[in-house]
């Protein structure tokens, strides 16, 4: 396999795995309008939970489910701090992110890296083991694609249910949710649980791909996830046939591709996080400029 194909595969693999997180952050940031910083803590939480389960001999599928549940619980805490204790959204996220650092260390019994090489993961057992031997180069990307597709389908289905519609209304017009006799705060907590569940699941998948859980893997995740969401929805937003869930996964892939190109052009690794921040800023500002230009009175001229 030549270098270019390898690079492309690598971008796709990582883009799809981080795409799972991007879909979760799409729920909190875009649907609920909640800038959730706890993502930096829930991503490694998913990795650490997965490490602990697999090291203890658990099945990798149980590890994925456990990661989602733990992530969702952490999301509930963020929501609880914000909705019930009236702490601002940013601060609630920072508090949970900070607290999770210790939680993650407890889960990994104090070590920063929890390796589980040669143990069964979703990449080498179950359906993945059935792939023909010739496809081994594509094994990771196929499993990542399947995981992202599964999350996408489930999220799209959820957003069409009664609860899903109410969640969208809660982000769009909380007063409308009140008028329906429902508590918008509860919907916010639910949305944060789903978003952080997906983030932890992405952390779990990444850990299984690399064969170890790394407590430092969360740094910069907020920026990466938000950038994916914003890049995805602004580049692909005009394509009416694409669901937002697909757009943000594509956004994650584009984002990863930008980073990979910069690395190939010889950018030192130390500058990676700086580049991530710059890319995010560019995405944010250009998105605002594009939508500003597009802004036309969104009103039907046929007055009653």
């Amino acid at each position: 396999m030549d270098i270019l194909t390898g690079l492309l595969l690598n971008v796709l693999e990582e883009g799809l795995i981080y795409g799972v997180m991007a879909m979760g952050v799409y729920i909190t940031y875009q649907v609920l309008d909640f800038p959730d910083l706890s993502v930096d803590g829930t991503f490694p939480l998913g990795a650490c939970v997965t490490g602990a389960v697999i090291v203890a001999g658990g099945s990798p599928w149980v590890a994925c489910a456990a990661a989602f549940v733990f992530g969702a619980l952490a999301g509930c805490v963020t929501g609880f701090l914000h909705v019930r204790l009236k702490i601002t959204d940013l601060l609630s996220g920072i508090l949970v992110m900070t607290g999770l650092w210790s939680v993650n260390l407890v889960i990994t019994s104090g070590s920063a890296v929890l390796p589980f090489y040669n143990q069964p993961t979703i990449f080498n057992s179950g359906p993945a083991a059935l792939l023909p031997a010739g496809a081994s180069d594509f094994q990771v990307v196929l499993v990542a694609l399947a995981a992202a597709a599964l999350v996408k389908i489930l999220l799209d289905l959820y957003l069409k249910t009664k609860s899903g519609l109410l969640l969208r209304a809660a982000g769009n017009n909380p007063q409308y949710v009140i008028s329906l006799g429902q508590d918008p705060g509860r919907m916010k907590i639910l949305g944060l649980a789903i978003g952080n569940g997906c983030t932890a699941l992405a952390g779990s998948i990444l850990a299984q791909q690399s064969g170890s859980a790394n407590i430092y893997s969360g740094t910069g995740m907020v920026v990466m996830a938000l950038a994916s969401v914003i890049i995805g929805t602004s580049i692909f937003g005009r394509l009416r046939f694409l669901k937002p869930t697909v757009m943000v996964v594509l956004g994650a892939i584009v984002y990863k591709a930008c980073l990979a190109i910069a690395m190939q052009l010889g950018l030192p690794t130390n500058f990676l996080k700086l580049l991530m921040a710059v890319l995010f800023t560019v995405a944010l500002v250009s998105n605002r400029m594009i939508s500003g230009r597009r802004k036309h009175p969104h009103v039907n001229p046929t007055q009653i």
Partner: protein
Amino acid sequence: MSTPLKSDSMVSVRHIDKTFSPDSVSKMVLFSDFSLEIRKGQFVSVVGSNGSGKTTLLNLICGSVAPDCGVILLNGKNLNHMKEFQRAKYIGRVFQDPAKGTCPELTILENMALADHKGSFFGLTSGVNKRRIDRYRTQLELLKLGLEDKLDLPVGSLSGGQRQALALLIATMTPLELLILDEHTAALDPRSSENVMELTERLVREKKLTTLMVTHNLKFSIRYGDRLLMMHQGRCVIDAADERKAALDTNDLLGKFNEISLEAGN
């Protein structure tokens, strides 16, 4: 409460005190010992100058503002310890801002499906019940705005008048004990507000809704409703129901309005 509930009373506001910013220089006593009874099926229109307490009265009933003391009963239920969203199960509210009564990103169909489900559990079943679509269409046809052909349009792309008519329809979709209209025609152009008012009258009469409508439009307050309240500094200065209301005209209201404005020194 010592006073027994009159059987035909729907809303009972009793001995309410409300002071805004009590500990500061800008302390403002709005209500002191304010009481109001509204009987079942009555359509009350409320007029009054800015700061007269009309919107605060609505907020007190809906629960977005808490009284300092006093009780508010709705159909015999004490509302004091219910949160705003809990009260909303019995109360429908249409706001001045057409954006508040609907969800702009969702389509007309999704908005109606949500409203149709008010009061039940929002679970994991399909959000839009396809078998109800024809019913929604029939209801939209009553608005005569052609919205029945635009079910899949996001509500955010409708005009203010269209949104407000839809908000009114949505607020009255499920059975209500009280309909609250908070200057719901104030943000609309004259023709749209006439249309929305006619729709209001039709819906209120058809469904025999107990209604509390705050308006800045003296003409509307004369023409619609079977009881008229004029409020000033947290008191009712005019309270005319049925025949006495029918005898009122705009000039009477304007006269009283000028009188209280003079008293207030402006």
